[in-house]
């Protein structure tokens, strides 16, 4: 366990050091995040016509959902894309062999090898937007409420990671799955809006099959004091289930992995 902690520290400090060499990238990233967020807010404002509601959510409440979406998008660019995107390259170029030979768990290595600090401002902006939305919506934050939201964010992150990792792991068979993650990203974009803005069939899809709802809508409901305990529990159970599935699938996939020479 201690070895893993030490390894992680090394991984991330080198990743940050490498990134700091490219300062222009950080600027470009900041600009992209600012543009993207203002675009999203502009788009959201279009839905708030004369009656000022979207699926029963007020502007301030919808801002909380946007904030949570931005946090997860930032999480994807900081952590998921640089790591899980590389799995496809490892399989294609045969360097997965080297990963498997290392005296450390391969899923751990592949999932946490690097970190892209350029995505951190997006997480910060998302949290800021969430806080602002909470303030505007008149949410009174209690310590226990804060704790549950933190747990929900972790559960959401775990769900997102597991989905992404599951798809990336299929590259063992299909070699090129870059586009599969693009499909996932397009569908995750649905998390920008409260679940009740969608027609019933899609609501079911986004809750059960592709649990986008647990990433943004449910945590926002928890903050607003609308989500009941069973919903929270469902999110946690789902996160654990998805993670277990991703883990099992990876071990299964590895049995089919034959490097080019064997």
């Amino acid at each position, binding site marked *: 366990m201690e070895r893993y902690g030490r390894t992680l520290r090394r991984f991330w400090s080198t990743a940050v050091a490498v990134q700091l060499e490219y300062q*222009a*990238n950080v600027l*470009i990233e900041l*600009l*992209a995040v600012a*543009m*993207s967020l203002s*675009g999203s807010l*502009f*788009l959201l404002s*279009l*839905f*708030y*016509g*004369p*009656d000022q*509601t*979207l*699926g029963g959510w007020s502007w301030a409440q919808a801002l909380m959902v946007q904030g949570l979406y931005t946090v997860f998008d930032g999480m994807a660019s900081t952590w998921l894309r640089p790591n899980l995107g590389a799995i496809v390259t490892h399989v294609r170029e045969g360097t997965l062999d080297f990963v498997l030979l290392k005296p450390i768990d391969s899923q751990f290595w592949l999932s946490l090898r690097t970190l892209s600090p350029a995505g951190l401002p997006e997480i910060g902006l998302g949290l800021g937007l969430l806080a602002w939305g909470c303030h505007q919506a008149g949410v009174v934050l209690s310590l226990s409420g804060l704790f549950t939201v933190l747990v929900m964010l972790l559960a959401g992150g775990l769900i997102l990671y597991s989905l992404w990792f599951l798809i990336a792991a299929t590259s063992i068979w*299909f070699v*090129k799955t*870059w*586009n*599969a993650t*693009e*499909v996932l*990203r*397009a*569908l995750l*974009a*649905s998390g920008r*809006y409260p679940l009740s*803005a*969608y*027609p019933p069939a*899609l609501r079911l899809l986004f809750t059960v099959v592709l649990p986008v709802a647990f990433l943004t809508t449910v945590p926002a409901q928890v903050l607003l004091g609308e989500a009941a305990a069973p919903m929270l529990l469902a999110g946690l159970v789902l996160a654990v289930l998805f993670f277990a599935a991703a883990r099992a699938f990876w071990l299964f996939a590895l049995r089919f992995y034959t490097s080019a020479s064997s």
Partner: protein
Amino acid sequence: MRILGLNRRIIRVLLGTQYAHMLEYRAEIALWALSGVLPFIMLSVWSGSEARTGLGLDGVALDRYFLSAFLVRQFSVVWVVYAFEEDALLGRLSPYLLQPLHPLWRYVAAHLGEQLTRLPFAAVIAAVFFVIQPQAFWLPSFGGFLLAWLATWLAFAIAFLFQSLIAALCFWSEKASALERLQFIPFVFLSGLLAPLTAFPPAVRAVAQWTPFPYLIDFPARVLAGQSVDLAAGFGAQLAWVALLLPLVLLLWRAGVRRYSAMGA
């Protein structure tokens, strides 16, 4: 007759080989087609929103608009920057430059081949859409279809030239794909992919109309959906953007290639 190294035989061979090449990656192209579902997600939010009445688009018109936006997007996707970056990085560009054919034609052929491969998948997605929303079914008139096809093709031309311009910057800087990312953000929000331009406040719409973005999705999609559009203004703007971008691209490429050979020498 040769235009930048192109003649009829070369066109046939280029298109044939690129189409065959794309057919090899059918699964990947099907996934690409699927990743364009964003207009449908936006459609479902728009149809539930009360703000829709402000657009003057009733339910069916909105359905048709977003399906058209999806189709236009499918046939105007451009990825020159990424292909070019890879070719330049792996050194494949050098032999291309030696051939008596402008390297851009190779990418044009690859895109056309991909569009042809994509056609059945896009048709399947459109068919599924009509099964779910039968009341939205419509067939554009033959004339309307031709106009929409022309507008989509011009949209592809603008997008292609715009990205080639960015790709040509690869000769000077390795930041070209970052630039591409930066232009993609205003494209997403201003092109009409997420909301019809009629939903925008007049001031934003007026500004957007001076960018190339609305002519990439919104204009062709509205022609395809059979809405009343100012055809002369739309086609005029599309042609103006092509006329502006084409010489820029050719000049920048020529300058870039000169620089590239200087690098190898």
